[in-house]
């Protein structure tokens, strides 16, 4: 029980931090005069939310670094501005460095994997082998889902998944609350109009 309560208080702090950063990032869009389609708006919201949730981890986790590396890949101006707003100048430079590091490690991992594949495989078709195949398949899918998962070994992958799921949960909760509140407000204003 204690653990749960601690969890909830720490997650509340996380939510607060995420919300602040998210709104911070969104404010950059208020200055742009160009017209935004609904899709642009959605992308802007999502981008700010992703950057915000990744930065709440202070980039101590692989997935948050991978998210930022992906973001900085799009050399489009707005993402840079949002990043700078949320993180500050120094960290954006760090992100750029980490992007190169990740590229190099990706190449290395590729070579390692190529070597491993050349080793012969057992062709025993037992139930345990089938189960192992399933597990392998699913770890591959999971690697695809978790950002930056391709370069991790299994142990890291599971640890990152843990963290990623928790952060996603925070993100979803906050966004849902905001959306609900906005809708409620809208409804109440509509009702008062009628």
């Amino acid at each position, binding site marked *: 029980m204690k653990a749960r309560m601690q969890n909830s208080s720490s997650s509340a702090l996380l939510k607060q931090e995420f919300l602040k950063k998210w709104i911070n990032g969104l404010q950059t869009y208020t200055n742009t005069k160009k017209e935004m389609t609904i899709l642009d708006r959605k992308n802007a919201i999502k981008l700010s939310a992703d950057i915000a949730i990744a930065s709440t981890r202070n980039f101590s986790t692989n997935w948050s670094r991978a998210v930022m590396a992906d973001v900085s890949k799009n050399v489009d101006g707005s993402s840079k501005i949002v990043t700078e707003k949320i993180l500050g100048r120094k960290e954006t430079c760090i992100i750029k460095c980490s992007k190169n590091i990740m590229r190099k490690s990706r190449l290395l991992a590729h070579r390692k994997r190529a070597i491993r594949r050349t*080793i012969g495989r057992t062709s025993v078709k037992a139930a345990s082998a089938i189960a192992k195949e399933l597990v392998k398949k699913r*770890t591959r899918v999971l690697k695809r889902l978790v950002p930056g998962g391709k370069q991790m070994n299994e142990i890291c992958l599971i640890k990152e998944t843990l963290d990623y799921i928790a952060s996603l949960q925070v993100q979803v909760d906050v966004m849902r609350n*905001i959306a609900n509140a906005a809708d409620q407000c*809208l409804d109440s204003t509509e009702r008062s109009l009628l």
Partner: protein
Amino acid sequence: MGFGLDEIHDLISGPTQTGSSSFTALLELPQPQAVELLVNEDFPSNHLPPPIFPSNNGLIDRATKFSVFASSHNSPESNAILSISSPMKPDVVKQEPLGSDSHPKSSSPTVSNQSLKSGKRKEKERKVKESNKKSKKLVADGGEKLPYVHVRARRGQATDSHSLAERARREKINARMKLLQELVPGCNKISGTATVLEEIINHVEALQRQVEFLSMRLAAVNPRTDFNFDALLAAESGLSIDNGYMGMFSPSILPEGQINGSRQVQYQQLWHSNELHQPVWAREENNPNFITPGNSLLSYGSSANSGKSTVQ
């Protein structure tokens, strides 16, 4: 009595022999006498004390048949070694010296393992392949693992460095899987890694989809309301966060009649989502799907905007 061993890639030399075989041996270059060991015999069930590797003529025969690196080494008995290069483990060859060839063939006392010979051939083959994979993995990881892990083998389990490393790794993975099971709802009752993984995948996908939908929903919302950042920043406890979202939105219908000093201050610290939508209003004719309440609130919007002119 026969001391059997699983495929072992162990270095045993007298002084360094410890209570449990450590896979650090893999990482070190072997001393001249000690040579890599790959003996494929079955391990008797309860062999906890340091494994002793008898040299065995029968073993050597088997080794030649399968052409693997097979050398038996027994420090207490300090028997001679024979190693044969294996085509399956080219990388491992790098780590262990091939100088074993220089060692004379052993004429050491044979152990009565020959009874194990026939039945164990297939297992040996499989284990050889397994050990190849394991040794490769350990070799590949060798550069990264700095602290040496000393593990004590449990009763009824093999004590070779391969299995120990594998077991330590497996335990790590299982411990983390348990944590994951607790995090993902509904995973507690499931047993089996594959199904748990599937649940985890579904959960991650669902969460990602939810983020997409919510951001679309937020983009579609026309927040002609003002967002009170102050209330958010002042919120300390988690409860107020969850319940306080409503307090952050003050309906824009109010500004007309109730703009007073404090409200002005509030409005000046607002989240100008209105700015986000203003350009869209310009295109409202072209965008019939747009939420219609926005149109009706235009009149109020202008007054609200005038209140925030300083921030614009």
